[in-house]
């Protein structure tokens, strides 16, 4: 089972990200669950969302304390709390940031990916909503979901025009994702397959 935790602020789309990922996995015939940190939703307030994906039925509904992957939609959250809490040593940390991924690896030998998702979102979506954008980096960084399935999940939820822009953003992030030194991400062709890592 893969456990993915999303950190963002209300309005950035952390919950939607988790749901897109689960939707894409379910479309691949896998089992998945996604859910938000439950509470009063407020724009700008820290939001955590969770996604579990497995080839076997999932029975857990508790929050994810030891994720395989952490996605940070807003790097200012690093100042507030330990977003990488419980992330395993070989876990993947995907951050919306203009900084070099190496600048985030000081805390541990974690596999870090950065992508300037805010700029991509503003360019293509005209909104600072980075949810689908960071999923593009996730496809590249982790062998759990295919680009096609994610695109399908997006088309399932958005109208044609919105889906098109989001899929473009997804692809842009896939290309632009920067990886910490010493870590080889998936080759492009294998990253395009249905996620075999689960």
């Amino acid at each position, binding site marked *: 089972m893969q456990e993915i935790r999303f950190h963002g602020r209300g309005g950035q789309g952390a919950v939607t990200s988790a749901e897109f990922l*689960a939707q894409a996995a379910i479309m691949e015939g896998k089992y998945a*669950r996604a859910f938000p940190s439950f509470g009063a939703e407020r724009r700008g307030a820290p939001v955590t969302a969770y996604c579990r994906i497995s080839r076997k039925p999932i029975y*857990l509904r508790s*929050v994810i304390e030891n994720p395989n992957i952490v996605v940070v939609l807003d790097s200012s959250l690093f100042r507030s709390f330990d977003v990488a809490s419980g992330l395993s040593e070989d876990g993947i940390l995907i951050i919306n940031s203009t900084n070099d991924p190496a600048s985030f690896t000081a805390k541990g030998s974690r596999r870090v990916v950065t992508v300037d998702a805010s700029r991509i979102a503003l360019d293509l979506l005209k909104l600072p909503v980075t949810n689908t954008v960071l999923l593009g980096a996730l496809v590249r960084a982790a062998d759990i979901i295919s680009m096609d399935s994610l695109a399908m999940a997006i088309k399932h939820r958005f109208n044609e025009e919105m889906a098109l822009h989001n899929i473009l953003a997804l692809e842009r992030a896939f290309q632009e994702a920067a990886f910490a030194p010493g870590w080889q991400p998936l080759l492009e062709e294998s990253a395009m397959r249905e996620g075999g890592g689960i």
Partner: protein
Amino acid sequence: MRNHQGMEVSFAAAEAVRLCNVDVVAAYPITPQTHIVERLSKYVADGKMDAEFVPVESEHSALSLCIGSSAVGARSFTCTSSQGLALMNEIVYLVPALRLPIVMILANRSLSGPLSIWNDHSDVMSVRDTGWIQLFAENGQEVFDHVMIAYKIAENENVLLPVIINMDGFILSHMFEPIELTGQEAVNTYLPSYRPRFILHPDRPVTMGAYTMPTLFTEAKKAQEEALLASYPYILQAWKDWGTLCGRVYHPVETYYTEGAETLFVTMGSIGETAGEAVRLLREQGQKAGLVKLRLWRPFPLEDFLREIGSAQRLIVIDRALSPGGPGGGPVAGEIRAALYNRENRPQVFNFIAGLGGREVTVGSFQEMFVSSVSGKASGYQIFGVRG
């Protein structure tokens, strides 16, 4: 898994209400039930559902309206949570007395105070004795299925009682998970149009909700209780028919690893899945643990329960609500203790209050409860993991 669709459980619930060709929806939004009402409102506004959606000004009005619409023969639906149910309470008692087959989803949430929007079962326990048939769903699929099943039970001419479907707030209502939807044709076959024998109609006057003198009230209440108890075989039949249609079979008491179990957890609602994981792990460690899940809460499936607990030595009963100052522990444990009183060789009952107001109950929580009960360290009643 290929037939499953990913969706939020609240949306699956709304989809089920749509598939049931409900005629009237009257509801007031309250966290965490809101998404169900919003989706139904949208269905009606978009013309995807041929129903009256009445955005009432309170839950008291929501159920009052459903009484009116159900009494004239319209299939009626409402849903609420917590304080909404509390505000509705006066009307909740009337529905079974009027024998109206209204279905209500309760997205379970704690009752204030302190103010909390999170999940526990204090709301449903507050309507325990209202005479509704009460069911608990463990996951999104069960929520979806039980909307159809609830109407099937409620509208059966031998039942004619309202049904509450309990789904844990947030833990189920806001969960996005795979759900196998049933097609409209299949639902229509399972749930034909509601054709009540008696309705309020100016041309054929009947009295509903009559005033009762002391000489008749007791008999009326007895008749009401008998009707609730007599609903049991029709509940089983509705589950059986659903199983024939969809292949998913439900029972009043569900079991997991009960064979040879010395210690059984007793749960209701979504924590059954978590408890099941704990039991699986305990079994891997060679512990004789098992799980009994109450799906049917009212009428209480006593015979099924006693059969399924078999000769277990101890029960670990999880309550998701307090019964402050009561003699028997939480509401569920109190009833189970009473049910076991006349039984020879009755098991020890350990009662843990857990998951109040959204407090997490994890696989580890159940393992801890198991260890403290089996080792004899646990008292008969305690609030799990509480500080102070």
